[in-house]
Structures are given as C-alpha cells and as structure tokens.
C-alpha cells in the first residue's frame, strides 16, 4: 500500500507524457495529411489526437481528485463521472478508428476470420474489454507488418501497441490487484515511448 501511495502523482505524470506523445503523433500524421491529402493520414491523425485528448482528460481528472484529496475537500461526482465518460468515449473512438484504418489500409491483411472472432466473442461490454479487443486486432496487424517488413520502425510500432495492450489488460485487473495500476501506467508510458522513438527515427534525414 505504501508503494502505491508513493506512486500517487507519478501516474498523472506518466499519463501526461503519454498524452503528449499521442498528440505529437497525431500532429505529425495531420502534417502528413496536409502534404498528401491522403485520408489514411487523416484517420491516423484523428485517432492519435483522440487518444491524446482522452489521456489528457484522464490526467486532469486525476489531478482534480488528488488536489481535492489533499485539501480535504469533497470530490464532485459529476466531474469524476464526466471525466470518465469523456475518457472512455474518446479512447474507444480512437482505437475503433485505428482498427478501421488497419482494416481499410493495411498493406497485408490478417486472415479475415481473426476480426469476427475478436469482435463477437461474448465479453461483458466494459470499456476496457472493448479496448483490449480493438488493441488485440491492431497489435496482430502490426506484428504481421513487422514479420513482413523486418524493419526496426515496424518493430517499434508493434512493441508500442503490445505494451499499450498489456497496459489495458492490467488496467482491467486493477480492481482485483491494486499493484496492476502501477504496472499498467508504466507499460502504457513505455508503449508511447516506443511510438515516439519510431517518430524520431522516421524524421531523421
């Protein structure tokens, strides 16, 4: 429990860093769309921007929660609920759009039987589970892409999404094991760092 207390605040920092990375990738894809007018880049830009916004709102709600807690003030349930709803909707929308982008624009397709299995398995309709399903599909696509291309940039994207997927699995387990909360945030941050490294490599001359 002590280690979890020490972690308070650090989770917000990690969420903000992840948010900045997601927004940077969204911005870069938007720049690419402006240059080429290719819709694929618009979808990438929108999905990463939504993801960035979702993480940003998540971070702001956490800050509000911690500040209220330290001041001993009562936490407004409406702020908390609104924050959670915005975060969930934005995140689901972001990963749905990203999965759609892979369905539409992937240069190599996973066996088409993969998607229905993943989409229609009888899970509870919880946000985290939806995200895990969408992320599974995206991670499979990026792993196939890496297997095909054998390039470091593709490996970085695959590893990035794999870590984000693992993060969401641990977010789901947070209600059972509290330590998963720390692990999930750390994995999420690492995932976005892998994507950032890819972006930096891509922009080398």
């Amino acid at each position, binding site marked *: 429990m002590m280690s979890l207390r020490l972690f308070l605040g650090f989770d917000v920092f990690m969420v903000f860093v992840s948010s900045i990375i997601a927004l940077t990738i969204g911005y*870069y*894809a938007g720049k*690419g769309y402006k*240059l*080429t*007018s*290719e*819709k*694929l*880049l618009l979808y*990438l830009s929108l999905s990463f921007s939504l993801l960035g916004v979702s993480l940003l709102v998540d971070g702001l709600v956490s800050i509000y929660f911690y500040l209220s807690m330290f001041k001993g003030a009562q936490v407004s349930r409406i702020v908390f609920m609104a924050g959670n709803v915005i975060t969930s909707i934005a995140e689901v929308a972001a990963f749905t759009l990203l999965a759609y*982008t*892979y369905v539409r*624009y*992937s*240069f*190599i*397709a*996973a*066996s*088409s039987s993969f998607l229905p299995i993943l989409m229609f398995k009888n899970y509870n309709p919880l946000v985290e589970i939806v995200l895990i399903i969408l992320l599974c599909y995206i991670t499979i*696509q*990026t792993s*196939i*892409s*890496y297997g*095909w*291309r054998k*390039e470091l*940039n*593709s490996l*970085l*994207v695959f590893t990035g999404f794999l870590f984000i997927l693992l993060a969401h699995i641990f977010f789901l387990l947070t209600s059972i094991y509290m330590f998963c909360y720390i692990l999930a945030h750390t994995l999420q941050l690492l995932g976005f760092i892998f994507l950032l490294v*890819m*972006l930096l490599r*891509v*922009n080398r*001359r």
Partner: protein
Amino acid sequence: MVLRKPAAYRSKIKIYVDMLEVIRREGGEAKPTKILYGANLSYDRFQKYISQLKEKEFIVEVKKNDGKILSYKLTDKAYNFLEEFKKVKRFIDAFGLTF
C-alpha cells in the same frame, strides 16, 4: 495472411511523386518523354499533371532558343516536398499501412 492487391488507381499525389522522382533520378532535369514513360502516363495525363506541377512551383521549364520546351527542372520546393514525402512514407510503413 492475405496480401492486399495494390490500389487499382494511382492517387494524384502518387503521380506527382512518380513524376518528380523521375526528374530527380535524371539529376534534377529531364526531358518530357523521359518523364512521360518513367511515370507511366498517357500523353493527356502527362499534360494535365505537368501543368499542375508548374502551378505548384515544383518544376520550371527549360526552353530552347526557339521557345520550345527542352526539359523540366526540379525546384527547391520539389526537393523539400520529396524529402517530406519520404518521411511520411516511412511513418506509414512503420504502421504497416499503405495508400
């Protein structure tokens, strides 16, 4: 695993890039026929896209003394565009996507 068929038609941006790449491969200046064949275009489409590239200031005409067009030369703007396009392509490739 299924390899997707390449898109049946080339987008405008791809045609621009193909034409500019032909000129770049020729050392920054190329004759019209070289661009036409190199970018695999019909004469009508070549005329259409070459005038668009001129409008966008990606190329300039090099004329003979009698005013006839001898070749097309890449501008700095075109070199920058190709460089930026290369980065965007690497970015999309990293995600395993294609347009």
